[in-house]
């Protein structure tokens, strides 16, 4: 029963993820031939890797002293993971993502001699993080709308207003500008920031939203 595990539908796809290992096994065949097409790679990334983001961010924040590097590190993990997946889809996305993250931190420590070795606290303990209990996927799916609304509530007010007009009222950028009485450039800024902040809230930092109904 995987018919509802559709990439075009973020919320229900989370429900299909109750068993992390299952979709991976399903996908394992993809990597054996010539590799994935761009849309298959996107599908795999959104379905398997993105849901791990909050755990990955915790892992990086925990194990890397300089917090201003975190966004770059996350991006680098994603690029490495997707690069590897082009030739062979890993059996377990979760184990692979965290292995990649650990290797990246180790590389960084070795390369940037300025960083003291303690920057990576206790490398051996890192594997434990891989078994961190993931979020309760079915609960997330059930609460998807509530979560989206809570995420929206956390945007700065003008940014939220622009985003709501565009996304919920279905207005085009120009109409949003007229409605809000601001320039189109300002609308662009609010929407760009809104998209980025929502991605961070929905993927990077969902823990506190999950507990607050």
């Amino acid at each position, binding site marked *: 029963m995987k018919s*509802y595990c*559709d990439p*075009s*539908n*973020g*919320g*229900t796809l989370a*429900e299909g993820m109750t068993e992390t290992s299952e979709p991976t096994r399903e996908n394992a065949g993809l990597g054996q031939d010539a590799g994935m097409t*761009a849309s298959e790679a*996107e599908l795999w*990334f*959104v379905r398997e890797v*993105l849901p791990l983001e909050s755990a990955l961010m915790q892992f990086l924040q925990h194990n890397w002293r300089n917090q201003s590097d975190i*966004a*770059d590190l996350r*991006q680098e993990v*994603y*690029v490495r993971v*997707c*690069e590897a997946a082009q030739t062979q889809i890993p059996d377990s996305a979760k184990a692979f993502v965290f292995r990649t993250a650990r290797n990246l931190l180790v590389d960084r420590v070795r390369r940037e001699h300025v960083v003291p070795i303690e920057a990576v606290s206790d490398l051996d303990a890192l594997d434990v993080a891989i078994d961190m209990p993931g979020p309760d996927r079915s609960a997330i*799916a*059930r*609460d*998807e*709308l509530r979560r*989206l*609304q809570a995420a*929206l*509530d*956390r*945007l*700065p*007010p003008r940014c*939220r*207003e622009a*985003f*709501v*007009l*565009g*996304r*919920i009222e*279905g207005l*085009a*950028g*120009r109409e*949003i500008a007229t409605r809000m009485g601001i320039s189109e450039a300002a*609308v662009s800024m609010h*929407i*760009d*920031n809104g*998209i*980025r*902040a*929502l*991605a961070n*809230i*929905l*993927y990077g*930092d969902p823990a*506190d939203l999950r507990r607050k109904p």
Partner: protein
Amino acid sequence: MSDVAEYPAPASGAMATEAEAASWLRRRNFWDWSQADQVALDAWLEAALEHRVAYWRLKAALERTERLGALRGAGAGQGARGRLWIVLARVAAGFAAVAALGVASAFYLLQPEQTIYATAVGGHKTIHLSDGSEVELNTATVVRVAAGARELWLDKGEAYFRIKHDAARPFTVMVAGHRVTDLGTKFLIRNVSDRLEVALIEGRVQLDTPDGRMREPLLLAPGDVAVARRNILYVEKKSDKALASATAWRHGIVVFNNTTLADAASEFNRYNARKIVIADPATAQLTIDGKFRSNDIEDFTHLAQTVFALQVRTQRNQIVISR
């Protein structure tokens, strides 16, 4: 973590890439989008895996907000506590399964006291029921009517209902596991491609969903369109103009309003044996406006050729539109 999500700092490389990705997505979703823009985006994505990853991530977040449409009418940014009719089903696959079962039952479980009515692709017919109610069937539609005429199953397709109200004997329509009960009414029900829509034109209807989905039935007011798709159900408020477009098929017309060629093609394909195929994703994303006769594919392909300068090829029973 603060209560307010802060704008990401633009300093680092990843942040700069993310800002670019956001700008592409914003232009694509909220501003005019031309074929040249699509080409430029494709090139940008092709240039680096880093670009693709950043774009996929933001796109996934943006697509998740699609279902925020369910909050329509709740007030922009006011904390949105107003009129919220949202239900998430426990059983996600339920809807598709029930829909499939509905079609099967039309053929295998037909009871003797039911009458079956159907239209072929491109067909259109009006049924006059013994109680004075009328049901107008659109293309490729199957309904079954119980002997007493106050109970009807819409197994497939789309139908417009003008129901003679009888408080003592409410008229009910069973569709994809949902029950629509008339409370004095004109309404439209469309059950196509795993998506159920109940649009109320006049009067009132009550909508009951399959077990466990909702605590209490949904009451629709005129202009409300209840949409059940996969495991979600939400209600949209539609303008009179939008409702008129939705029922334009009764006059043999399809109306497009900022509709992608992909959606327009599938709408035409509901009515015609010759199917339109859009060959590439960039073409599929082009949008059109206008009214067409639902059986006039030539009018549509002519527009594709002249306005969008697209190639139109006819292969057996297919019409392929491409760049």
